[in-house]
């Protein structure tokens, strides 16, 4: 099939607790390879940890947040961490840092923070929505 389809990817499993970010990246690369469009990546629940700017795995291990951010930037794919999931779990951008007077921000570009409306739009407008959950 050579028709171009649009996809929303939802990641709910955290790196280093689940395989979700890895599986999602492997699928995302193949989607681009197959000329499909990724409308957006939406991080929900534990999945928001993928957008951490501070993840520092040992140098002989893959750095999933960095690989994801490079992939997103290269293909200009919007990626959003759910604001409610993110704030609870300590993932904030500069605006939230200022608003809540926090000592730092730790969101990795090009991830942004937004509401569940972004996910709803995905379910309405994308041809496919794929979920990547933790496996335990």
């Amino acid at each position, binding site marked *: 099939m050579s028709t171009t389809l649009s996809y929303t990817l939802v990641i709910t499993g955290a790196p280093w607790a689940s395989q979700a970010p890895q599986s999602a990246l492997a699928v995302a690369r193949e989607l681009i390879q197959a000329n499909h469009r990724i409308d957006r990546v939406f991080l*929900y629940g*534990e999945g928001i940890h993928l957008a951490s700017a501070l993840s520092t795995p040992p140098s002989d291990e893959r750095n999933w947040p960095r690989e994801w951010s490079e992939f997103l930037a290269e293909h200009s794919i919007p990626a959003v961490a759910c604001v409610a999931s993110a704030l609870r779990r300590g993932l904030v951008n500069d605006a939230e840092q200022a608003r809540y007077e926090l000592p730092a921000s730790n969101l990795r570009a090009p991830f942004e923070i937004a*509401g*569940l409306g972004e996910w709803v*739009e995905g379910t*309405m407008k994308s041809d496919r929505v794929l979920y990547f*959950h*933790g496996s335990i």
Partner: protein
Amino acid sequence: MSTLIVVDQAPYGSWAGREALDMTLSLAAFDQPAALLFIGAGVNWLRQQQAPEGIGQKSLEKNLSAAPIFGVETIMASASDCQRYGLTDANTLAGVVTVDDTKAAMAGYEQVAFAG
């Protein structure tokens, strides 16, 4: 595009049930047909008289009861899982529809998703 959100995780031991309800309410807020299906240990979200103050959490009971007001069209629960966990008409939240055939229930929706 009708969506069914499925909850199979026990209450209060994880956030998945709350996050599932938030997803469902968001769909409803955008006028998208949305319903909830509770299966497995997830049916325990539907028990009356939850009092999670002692573990520092907020009860989801009122939010679930109010979900239809916010446009969530149906709250369903697996009849066999309710029976397994001792949920009866007497101790289950009002408005919950028990279903004998969860497979058929899922088949009624174009999208089916879990919160985590």
